């Protein structure tokens, strides 16, 4: 890519202190994202995918978290933002939608009020204009009878409607980057696909970049241009979604894809990955997947392998990848 990317994450590291222990949730994540691009981040619980996302919006509890590395979004040095500048960045440049729409709305304010609040905060328009914008956004996310829904409280809407309203809220100030944290996980199957399609459509229309975190390969395949796979706080593979899904390079990605039941697999055994992810309070010195890896070599245990290119835009953090790989 020739133009400067919209998002530039370098060596992002996040650790929490809990009960005297330091939990290394994210350990050196680096990636770029172009304007208007959709990147999926795939990972299981504890892989650090949600923490990475929250770090991009600085939503982690300040006093218990240590963040290292750098994050640049649209020219803002995100990790250095303070006070008013941080508030101006949140919601206007980057906004976020969450897993549980019921929990991410304030239960005692109406939906309309909560959208208008954000519009007023970032554009400085008056109440009336803000409500008009809220109404327009509810219409855009195709909530039926939006004028009535403006006055609804979160508990008065169904799960799918609430998530639509959350999207309306997130897009109300036309952000350049949308962060989506498992936004369809809590929804029913027939609702999930509606929300995915809506997100895809609005992404085209608004032209924003999206980072979409999910544990579901199918969902990631539906929305992503590029796909990153995280394991134990590291990005272990990144590349075009088609390549990652069709020709995974990292043993973990391959294991994950083969443990997923799809199509008619009756009567065949699932090739599950043995073992469990490492303890984030005591990560191994080398590749964190090595203890579960069938192709492990002594080098893997010595130090964390670097990202190695499999093709021009597809890389994985494994010594067996790429032209220089040991035979």
């Amino acid at each position, binding site marked *: 890519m020739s133009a400067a990317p919209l998002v530039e994450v370098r060596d992002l590291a996040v650790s929490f202190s809990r009960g005297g222990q330091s939990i290394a949730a994210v350990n050196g994540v680096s990636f770029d994202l172009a304007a208007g691009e959709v990147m999926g981040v795939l990972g*299981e*619980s504890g892989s650090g995918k949600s923490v990475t996302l929250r770090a991009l919006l600085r939503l982690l509890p300040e006093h218990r978290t240590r963040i290292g590395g750098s994050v640049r979004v649209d020219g803002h040095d995100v990790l250095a933002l303070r006070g008013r500048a941080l508030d101006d960045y949140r919601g206007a440049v980057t906004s976020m939608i969450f897993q549980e729409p019921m929990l991410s709305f304030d239960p005692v304010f109406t939906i309309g009020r909560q959208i208008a609040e954000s519009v007023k905060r970032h554009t400085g328009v008056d109440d009336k204009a803000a409500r008009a914008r809220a109404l327009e956004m509810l219409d855009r996310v195709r909530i039926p009878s939006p004028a009535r829904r403006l006055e609804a409280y979160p508990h008065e809407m*169904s*799960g*799918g*409607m609430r998530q639509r309203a959350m999207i309306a809220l997130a897009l109300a100030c036309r952000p350049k980057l949308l962060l989506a944290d498992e936004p369809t996980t809590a929804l*029913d*199957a*027939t*609702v*999930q*696909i*509606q929300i*995915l*399609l809506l997100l*895809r459509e609005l992404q085209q229309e608004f032209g924003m970049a999206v980072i979409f975190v999910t*544990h*579901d*390969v*199918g*969902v990631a*395949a*539906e929305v*992503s241009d590029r796909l990153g796979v995280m394991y134990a706080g590291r990005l272990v593979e990144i590349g075009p*979604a*088609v390549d990652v*899904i069709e020709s995974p390079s990292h043993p973990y990605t391959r*294991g*994950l894809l083969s*443990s*997923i*039941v*799809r*199509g*008619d*697999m*009756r009567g065949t*055994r*699932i*090739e*599950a*990955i*043995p073992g*469990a992810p490492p303890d984030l309070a005591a990560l191994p010195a080398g590749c964190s997947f090595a203890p579960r890896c069938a192709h492990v070599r002594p080098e893997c245990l010595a130090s964390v392998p670097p990202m190695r290119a499999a093709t021009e835009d597809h890389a994985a953090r494994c010594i067996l990848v790429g032209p220089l790989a040991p035979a």
Partner: protein
Amino acid sequence: MTATPILEARQLVKRFPVKGGLLGKARSWVHAVDDVSFAIAAGESLGVVGESGCGKSTTARLLVHLLEPDAGTILLDGRPIGVTNGVPLTQARRQIQMVFQDSFASLNPRLTVEASVAFGPRVHGVSQREATERARSLLARVGLEPDRFAGRYPHELSGGQRQRVNIARALALQPRVVILDEAVSALDKSVEAQVLNLLLDLKAEFGLTYVFISHDLNVVRYMSDRVMVMYLGKIAELGPVASIYDDARHPYTRALLSAMPSMNPRRRTTQAPLAGDPPNPIDPPPGCRFKARCRHAEEVCGQGDIQLYAAGEAHRVACLMDQPRAGHSHSAKAVVP
């Protein structure tokens, strides 16, 4: 089926009151399970799929008698449970066991893993020593080395390990039927795969019959011989796994199947099969429960109860379009199988 089914549900009904009236009287009812009948052959796996509010968990709880049905009967080996001349309830409970979704909530935090597994046999009069022995061998069988894990408490285990304990606990009574209510839904995919493999091994080894309840259509397809699709407390469609997945007849089943993400970035889903959310099953209107979201709905769909109708060998559908002379404009094309 000619052989007597191991477990059979006949016209099960369960309603829950919605409180709110004066003096706490119920003003309306949640029709959680409404006139549901099905039978399971010994050694078979019946998959149950559906979205929230479809009644799949209530059905599970009815089958293990954690809830009493408002109407209908449950038969074990053709004999009704819990009535005179039927199967005594304690007998039935020993033979039908259940694994819950929440691996943490389903283990007593004050008991060691071993004590939890040994509890069932103890209740049924097995000696302490024998129960402990059985617990340890089952823990070993589900992949938890007893010397390391037997003395642990639930919070000292991971989600996948806890679910293994729950499976061991369910097997401790040497049941013939195991109800798995979203038993792998809370697990990560790589762990889920391990547990699914384990479940299939155990089924073969102990000759178990499974009722496998899940919202994940891929997993249900993998695990089941037959599949039952539920919508708002009713059976929409019931049939062999192949005909449900390759030849779905009910519009809801077809919608569910086409709502599955494609898993292929080159062939993404382009259209959502349904609009809106599944409604609440509170005081549903008469007729087909699905008609409000069905694109083929006609006036006739709102009249009377829609019965399951044979759409093929062992394949039943609750849709007028598949019933000849049912009055729906598509009914004409339906053929008598």
